């Protein structure tokens, strides 16, 4: 469902990504881990067609992200890290607008879908509230509702639980687990405990390069780390150096 081949991205002399290749399949949650500035968000932005890669190629749901960007956008639900929302709109207005942009017609079908997604993301009680007045937790859930609105086969979530309280984190994780049933989920996070409980496979990026990939068990075996609650943290410390891309 997601195929990235030799993705590279440079900004002047800075190599944000160097020859990154990976695949993610339907029914799988692929965790993208890495220190701050490692290139995680750049990878997600290329896959979401927001950024063109300097070299390499990527396909999402069979479409090339550079050549068929509109087709890719139809098939991807993206929740960006800071989840910016238009402050002046109401929740219901915003989702209706986004539904129209994503081609959810006729109106009756869109309304039904919005009601379903409001329930699923637990934002029914704030449906008439203005987005600028929502708490961080609700804003994040509205962003997730938007990402899932058109029922895309690929969902890309960039730090979805940052700034949420434990109840909200638990609920959001439950939704992400449900997505595994029929979607490909790319979950970018630096919360290692989250990655270890949610993800089927992990991709560790450091300084723009993939420094580790596989299931939790495979990574532990490769790096000779005994299993336990701190195993992923130990693996992460061993294979990443931290710092920004060069």
């Amino acid at each position, binding site marked *: 469902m997601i195929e990235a081949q030799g993705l590279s991205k440079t*900004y002047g002399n800075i190599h*944000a990504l160097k020859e990154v290749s990976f695949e993610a399949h339907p029914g799988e949650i692929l965790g993208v881990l890495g220190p701050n500035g490692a290139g995680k968000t750049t990878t997600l932005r290329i896959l*979401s*067609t*927001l*950024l*063109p890669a300097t070299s390499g190629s990527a396909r999402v749901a069979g479409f090339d992200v550079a050549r068929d960007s*509109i*087709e890719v*956008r*139809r098939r*991807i639900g*993206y929740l*960006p890290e*800071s*989840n*910016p*929302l*238009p*402050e*002046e709109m109401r929740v219901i207005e915003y989702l209706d*607008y*986004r539904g*129209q*942009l*994503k*081609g959810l*017609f006729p109106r009756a079908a869109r309304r039904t879908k919005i009601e379903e997604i409001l329930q699923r993301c637990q934002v029914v009680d704030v449906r008439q509230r203005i987005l600028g007045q929502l708490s961080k937790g609700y804003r994040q859930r509205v962003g997730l509702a*938007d990402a899932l609105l058109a029922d895309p086969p690929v969902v890309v979530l960039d730090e979805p639980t940052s700034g949420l309280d434990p109840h909200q984190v638990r609920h959001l994780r439950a939704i992400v687990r449900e997505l595994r049933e029929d979607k490909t989920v790319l979950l970018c996070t630096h919360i290692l405990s989250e990655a270890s409980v949610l993800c089927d496979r992990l991709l560790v990026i450091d300084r723009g390069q993939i420094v580790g990939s596989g299931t939790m068990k495979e990574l532990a075996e490769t790096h000779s780390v005994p299993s336990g609650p701190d195993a992923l943290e130990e693996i992460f410390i061993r294979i990443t150096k931290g710092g920004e891309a060069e």
Partner: protein
Amino acid sequence: MRPFAVLLRREVHAYAVSPLTYLVLTLFWLMQGFLFFLYVETSRGDYSTIVRATFSSNFFFILITLAPPLLTMRLFAEEKRRGTLEVLLTAPVTNLQVVLSKFFASWILFGGLWLPVALHFLVLSSYGSAPHWGPIGTGILGTLLVGSFYCSIGLFASVISDEQMISAVVSVVLCLSLLFLHFLHFLGPPADIIPYLRHTSIPFHFHDLAKGILDTRALTFFLSGTLFFLFVSWKMLQTRQWRSP
């Protein structure tokens, strides 16, 4: 076509809920009402004098130059500052649809600013003989054409800036430049470039329209200027995506 209509509705809605819109509308309508009263008083009801004053006075050119920067400064600058442009561009819409929807929304509002002018002449016609609608019609058409040119400049200024105020300043400077090119011949530039300076100034092309003459050179100038800045805005939006870290 459908995404464009959805985006256009969204942009018009954004104007409708912005306090700045109502502030600009109130100020412009009051100003136009006051000016119209002044023109009627001083012309003693002579239609041709009123029409000439309405579309050729210095006040007219000040209003038509200041309005578009105020209307367009937030279009892209605000979306970039908030980060909502990124979310917008993950939806299945093209950059061109985004640019055009913002442009047409600002142009619709610009047209709304000049609604009282048409109403003033309608009211005046009910009190006396019928006016010559030709110069009034071409004057309004010219106003809308200048507005489209200036709105496209404002849109361009908003694409290249992340701050509304910077966007407004860039837009005002560019719009004023097109206004004052007309007067540069007073500075004594080489004689052979004076015609070129004149032909790139707004008042030169607007002059005939205000007199009721529909000159294709004027139409071509305003429309090609609009298309040029829309094209550059579209390309700048694309290159911004390539450059953003």
